[in-house]
């Protein structure tokens, strides 16, 4: 996949955010994922070139962070929280059932390339446990059944929207562009907060 002049312009704008170019290495890796769906060797070379680093230096950073994928993930990358609290409350059961249902294991992709699966660590939504993430959007209060329906909707090409997120689930590549710091114009969509987030405020207004 060739990187176009426009791609290089965007990468240049990412580098210019920082006082020192090397700081841009992480958003540039997200950007590479937005083009290729994972961190390709070509992407590593391109980053090394624009930052005037060795490819090995870029690889050393890329391999440290679990969100940078060395192999392609699905169009919809599903993460099931199996850290203690979510695991106990149903995350383990959800993850096991999704493996069965999709016929894939951890860090694997369905043959149609639609869905990949990963068990993830705490995603800062414990008051919505058990939590499932897709392309790092929130799917709160999941059950075995709702999680199966979610991945079925993805494979059918019509994924259910996140619980707290935009009106539609963007693809993994599109989400990676957001994580590179590019604005996709969807910030205004979705709720400002879910019910658990507002519980204390609501009780306070009731005089508690």
């Amino acid at each position, binding site marked *: 996949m060739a990187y176009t002049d426009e791609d290089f312009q965007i990468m240049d704008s990412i580098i210019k955010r920082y006082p*020192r170019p090397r700081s841009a290495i*992480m958003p540039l890796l997200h950007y590479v994922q937005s083009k290729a769906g994972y961190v390709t060797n070509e992407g590593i070379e391109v980053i090394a070139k624009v930052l005037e680093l060795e490819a090995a230096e870029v690889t050393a950073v890329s391999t440290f962070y679990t969100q940078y994928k060395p192999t392609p993930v699905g169009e919809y990358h599903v993460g099931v929280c199996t850290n203690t609290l979510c695991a106990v409350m149903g995350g383990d059961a959800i993850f096991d059932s999704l493996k069965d249902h999709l016929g894939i294991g951890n860090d694997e992709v369905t043959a149609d390339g639609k869905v990949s699966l990963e068990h993830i660590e705490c995603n800062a939504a414990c008051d919505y446990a058990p939590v499932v993430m897709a392309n790092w959007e929130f799917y709160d*209060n999941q059950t075995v059944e709702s999680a199966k329906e979610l991945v079925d909707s993805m494979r059918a090409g019509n994924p259910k929207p996140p619980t707290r997120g935009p009106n539609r689930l963007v693809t993994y590549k599109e989400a990676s562009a957001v994580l*590179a710091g590019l604005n*996709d114009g969807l910030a205004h969509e979705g709720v400002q907060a879910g019910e658990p987030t507002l519980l204390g405020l609501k009780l*306070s207004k009731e005089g*508690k």
Partner: protein
Amino acid sequence: MTKLAPVLSAHWDEKDSFTLEGYKRHGGYTASAKALTMDPDAIIQLVKDSGLRGRGGAGFPTGMKWGFIPQGDNKDHYLVVNADESEPGTCKDTPLLMANPHVLIEGCIIACHAIRAKHAFIYIRGEVTHVVRRVNQAIQDAYAAGILGNGVDVVLHIGAGAYICGEETALLDSLEGFRGQPRLRPPFPAIAGLYARPTVVNNVESIASVPAIIKNGAEWYQSMGTEKSKGTTLYSLSGHVVNPGQFEAPLGITLREILDLAGGVRPGHTLKFWTPGGSSTPLFTDAHLDVPLDYEGVAAAGSMLGTKALQIFDETTCVVRAVLRWTEFYKHESCGKCTPCREGTWWLVQILRDLEAGKGTEADLAKLLDLCDNIMGRSFCALGDGATSPITSSIKYFRDEYIAHLTQGGCPFDPVASTLFAGAGA
């Protein structure tokens, strides 16, 4: 009965709370306008006087941290906001930023003025796409409105899935474009932080608390909380409770009070163990329901206030399973720099896996504690220390349960019983 006191969360129930318009409706950016007319040292003094302490876990006085930045040194200074919220159980900064990113930006402007910095970085974890959108949009809107760009620039930096980057020096290495591994201190970030320049690293909630302090004064903030733990804070209740959620209350509220507000532990069940501030803080039990949840109260009872992540587990939960899972997390997230943590967490997992499967011996408990002793305090950062907390505290309170795994040759608990959908066809 302690009354809830929403300050940070006061307007989260308005649909457009995350927009510039929604924020300005309630006096947004008047505090930064006021602060910019004040002497920077006066702001630092005001924050010191307020008693605000770091909300990221350690509870270090925020104003004092700001005061450590050398002045008149002709160097660039930096503010770095730690939004890498990843401590298991912790879920306060993420909803805060989703509902009101502008309060953080306003706090950044004030803090930058106080420490004479022109540049703030917000380091947010990468696994929260929509929160990234909200913060990014808020920054762009603040620039468009001329709120940013006139002396203070804010850059959003997005992480990529490494718990260790919540540790402030690992965060700085990551922000400089390296693997996120902690640095040996001293020098502290206040002297040599980002790009070896004087740097303040503060948690989201700490910086977001500043605008209200500027607006309402130190005395107002001091009037809430306890003797040494002032103000309000977000308590995040999760787990086996009727209504989990965020409860903003004065420091010093108790779990008993919060559980009352939340409808209690789920019906038909009883509290078994809980974390006061995330998985790195030693476990508490039902004997600790009345511990004041402030920095001193929790420490006096043998744990840490941490991030005020109250994870509740009822009697259906196997404590060995819970602790093993946390330990697997620390093993996975150990950055590998320091030997005691890198090697120690692997050993801990191996032994705990055997114990959970009923394959160990009682001597393994002593070995676990010995390993913890050799991890604790022996690495550059506190990740390894945190890994020992659930182990040592669970052995202290639930030794019999470990033994039961050995005598029964396996886990005596049914994992289905602890799920939310137990009995619902799971």
